């Protein structure tokens, strides 16, 4: 039984929302009833445990498992709210050189046996940590902010996904999904950001969702509950849930965040007598 889908969440650039997106999508998948494991590959700078509110229950970590010092079952941390969501935390005291290719391969292969979805949170950069995180993935979610440097770094990462992964080496194409995060409605209106269409055009990867910049996301991170669990009705949570449904293969249109019109505004629009 190993029909799990391994998804890498990656971006090249730091601070675009990889970890937040990993937590949100993993939770959304778990809420759909799948067995989900989120793996933090950011060895040395681990954050996923904080975002998922599991930092006080970490005993063993990815490096321990890779080195055979602990079993996967010992290292997995179960989510407090969702029974079918697990976290494999990164080590904070080691660095990325502690990961070996064979070790990562055996961890991923074992996780494939227990879960339906394995979501890997890639570290920033294009070095060892990031390449190992993507190495054994079946699909990739490319996280980009609507600004030029982030888009260019994503482009670089897409190039690596098509060259340095097991899937690419076996001659197949890795399915890729573009997730635009921190989309600021105000700034989009003022033309200060790249338009969604431009980002999609530059990267030529199908869009899976557009997540608005929102205080809900920040709040959710601070309390350690992914936004898709803490505040289901917030625009950001809705965007992540929508992205997750598209990841599951549903064919639904991508909602581009817009400024909310007040109810009164809607009713009285252009109706002044």
């Amino acid at each position: 039984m190993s029909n799990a889908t391994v998804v890498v969440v990656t971006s090249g650039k730091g601070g675009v929302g990889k970890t937040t997106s990993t937590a949100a999508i993993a939770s959304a998948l778990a809420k759909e009833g799948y067995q989900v494991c989120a793996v933090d590959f950011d060895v040395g700078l681990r954050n996923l445990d904080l975002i998922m509110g599991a930092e006080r229950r970490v005993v063993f970590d990815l490096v321990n498992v890779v080195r055979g010092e602990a079993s996967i079952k010992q290292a997995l941390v179960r989510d407090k709210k969702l029974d079918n969501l697990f976290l494999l935390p990164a080590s904070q005291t080691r660095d990325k050189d502690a990961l070996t290719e064979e070790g990562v391969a055996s961890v991923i292969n074992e996780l494939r046996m227990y879960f339906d979805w394995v979501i890997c949170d890639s570290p920033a950069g294009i070095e060892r940590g990031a390449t190992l995180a993507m190495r054994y993935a079946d699909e990739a979610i490319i996280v980009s902010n609507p600004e030029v440097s982030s888009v260019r770094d994503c482009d670089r990462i897409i190039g690596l996904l098509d060259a340095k992964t097991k899937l690419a080496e076996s001659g197949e194409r890795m399915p890729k999904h573009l997730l635009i995060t921190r989309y600021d409605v105000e700034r989009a209106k003022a033309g200060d950001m790249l338009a969604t269409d431009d980002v999609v055009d530059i990267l030529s990867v199908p869009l899976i969702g557009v997540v608005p910049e929102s205080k809900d996301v920040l709040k959710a991170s601070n309390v350690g509950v992914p936004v898709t669990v803490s505040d289901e009705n917030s625009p950001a949570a809705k965007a992540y849930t929508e992205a997750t449904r598209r990841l599951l293969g549903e064919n639904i249109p991508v909602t581009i965040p817009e400024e909310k019109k007040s109810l009164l505004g809607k009713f009285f629009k252009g109706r002044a007598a």
Partner: protein
Amino acid sequence: MKFKGKSFIAIVLTPEPPFPDWFKEIDRIIARSPGFFIDRPIILDVRGSKIPIDELEELLAGLTERSVRVMGIDGVAGTRLKPGMPPSFSGGRLASDVDVPDPSGEADKKSNGTSETVSGGKTSAKGDGKPEKPGSEAPKTNGKSKGDGGETDSDTLSGPTGLADGSSIVITEPVRSGQSILHPDGDVTVIGSVSSGAEIIAGGSIHVYGALRGRALAGVSGKDSARIFCSKLDAELVSINGLYKVADDFDGTLRNAPAQIRFENETLVFEELT
């Protein structure tokens, strides 16, 4: 102060023992085209041969006798060289082989490609041109992909034509940032976009059916007639036969328009494709 960058194709001579025989080959080339080695940058490549300095001295003397002036030596540490010897030279990127011209005196033709100043840019290039020997193996194509170079270098070749002889390659997916397509022998066609931070280096023309946002260097084997075509011009840098233009110097009206770029009278001509 500004430094101009210029790239030349250097002829790389690789001496093969026994040297008297090797010198006979050189003599034969000189006899056939006396101008072949004149005014050309020449590099002596002795990598891997662990040549004693005395023998190297003899070699250099032999070459000087034949009026072949060596500008640098590749493969010997600078500290081992005697005073008066050409300096040690390393690095460089391989280019296509240099053909020995017909005896019709074509070697006198000079058309060294010049490159415009690229601010802060270093230009270095070295060609691997082993003179073709009568009855020797078929000309090799040497080309190493450069990887993530931030450095601009391009190869230009003066003299003999017929290097880019029509072999062309087609890339059917977008060329991503950081990727480099190197094809010194002919045309490169890309079906898709060339991203910012990517580069295409072609001996012949470059065709991009998509947006050209990265660098395109056409005609690097000395082909003035090479052109660059794209459906949407948003390039960082374009070059034909070593003549560069960076995005800042482009004519703004063609931005994002379908365009072609060609080489004419030592300038790059930009035209909208209609």
